[in-house]
């Protein structure tokens, strides 16, 4: 029995925890976003470790597919958050886009 799953399993849990901690400690959007991404990588790594059946064995393809989905979701969420962050950073002088009052 190789120690591969054990090592990466521990790594996955550590990444998950580090990400959670970072998301809690930071208040800036960018750093929190990085933290969430790291945490997500930890969870995805956990799936891949579960799929691993040992050297020379074919791995379980289902977690791989799930992780692929998870990766794409993560990058889209990151993109959305960065766009909103950039929105907040825009200078104030532009006409305040749309408060509900002028939606009449």
């Amino acid at each position, binding site marked *: 029995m190789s120690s591969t799953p054990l090592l990466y399993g521990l790594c996955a849990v550590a990444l*998950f925890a580090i*990400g*959670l901690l970072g*998301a809690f400690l930071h208040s800036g*959007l960018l750093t*929190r*976003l990085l933290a*969430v991404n790291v*945490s*997500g990588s930890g*969870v995805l790594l*956990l*799936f891949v470790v*579960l799929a691993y059946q040992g050297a020379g064995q074919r791995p*379980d393809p*289902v*977690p791989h597919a*799930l992780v692929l*989905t*998870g990766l794409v*979701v993560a990058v*889209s*969420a990151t993109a*959305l*958050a960065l766009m*909103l*962050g950039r*929105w*907040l950073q825009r200078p104030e002088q532009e006409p*305040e*886009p*749309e*408060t*509900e*009052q002028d*939606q*009449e």
Partner: protein
Amino acid sequence: MTNLLVWPVLLSLAAALGTLIAPSNAARIATVAAALSLWSVLLLLSAVIAEGPQWLILGGWPQGLGIALHADPLSALFLLMSAAVCLAATIFARRYVEHSRYRSQFWPLWLLLQTAIYALLLAADLFNIYVTLELLGLSAVTLSALGGSRAAVQAAVNYLILGLLGSLLFLAGIALIYGRYASLDLQLLARVVEPGPSLWVAMALMTAGLVLKSALFPLHFWLPAVHANAPAPVSAVLSALVVKVAFYLIMRLWLDLFNPAVMSTAADLFGVFGALAIVWGSWQAMFTARLKLLAAYSSIAQLGYLFLFLSLVLVMPEGEDRQLLLGALVLFALSHGFAKSALFLAAGTVQQYAGHDRIAELRGVAGQLPLTFFSLGLAGVALIGLPPSGSFLAKWQLLSTTLLAGQWYWVAVVVVGSLMACVYMFRVLSVAFGEEGVATQRIHSRREELPTLALAVTATLILGLGGVWVWRVLDVGAAGGLG
């Protein structure tokens, strides 16, 4: 096996594409899609009543390989509420976003949000639930950011990060379950799960994620800013459906999947935090300055009731009493869904009409918006839990159950919460029905007040008088469940 199960999802998704390609007809497409979704949900509900729970495994693959969809009385009732609220809010939104600069993106996003709600209520596969949760979260975030103000976008960003954390916790739980049981299908899992470290930790992680998304006290802090700053129809759907769908998932998982591992301490925690949410949310609602914030805080309190209900249901032994209380829970959730969406739509009308929603300055507005304030009053009746509303029946059931069990402390919480709800609702109404009038800003169309009225009437009268029907429908599936 019937394709009926995918219709609500598919209709909304196809309509989202339609509005994307043909922005000029978007409002019409969205209304038709919402109406058709409601129709398909009604068909589904009648199928559930006639034939029992419905299943579909997509792609025609064997169970476990393909993704399963599932509708039982519980999910069908939530679907019905969602479809009805969505239709009303869609009709309301037509006028609301008519001149918005975001309207060509609003409609596809709006329909994607509905897609996510229906998909989540129908999902019977753990990873599929995760994907729908993400779709729900991201579409809700984007729509709430379309409020367009700095406060709205800031709130949306916080909502996004917390939502992502919630989904991550949920996903980590899925990983643990997959690691132990090598399946994602809820029905298959329900047959094999057994108490043990995997299930306990997975339960804790998944519940924590969902609790964050359903804004149970003390994890509610993101909610008021989001719901108060989003466009009114979006707030209505967020408050009435999005938060509640997360609650639905908790209920679903705890009643079916986690059932063998439910411990009374864990269930009691739901009750304690639910009670705290009732008191704290109502307290904030009593003193807040803005109408939409009031509605948002009221949501926190009302979600507290749902968790209180759930904690009592969970510790009850299987049997008629449990079924009665579960029916009360569902009835309460439905009434709140209709009443809260009515309240937010009314607030939206007020805001458009008066140019703000500061409660203290709404003196006399009721005279100019009688229909809206009538709806607001009706919604208040349901939120307080006065007869003849559906929530009155539900609370009544709750009180009688707790009294019989000698749990007077829950009785106290419910009574205090209801009294506080009286205070915050009457505070609005007494100001609005006051003497002075404000200058009329524009000619108002009665037509856009109708969806609000319809929702409020449903919450108060239809669910109140037809509450027994909810219990009867739920009884159809009493033997069913997922197991």
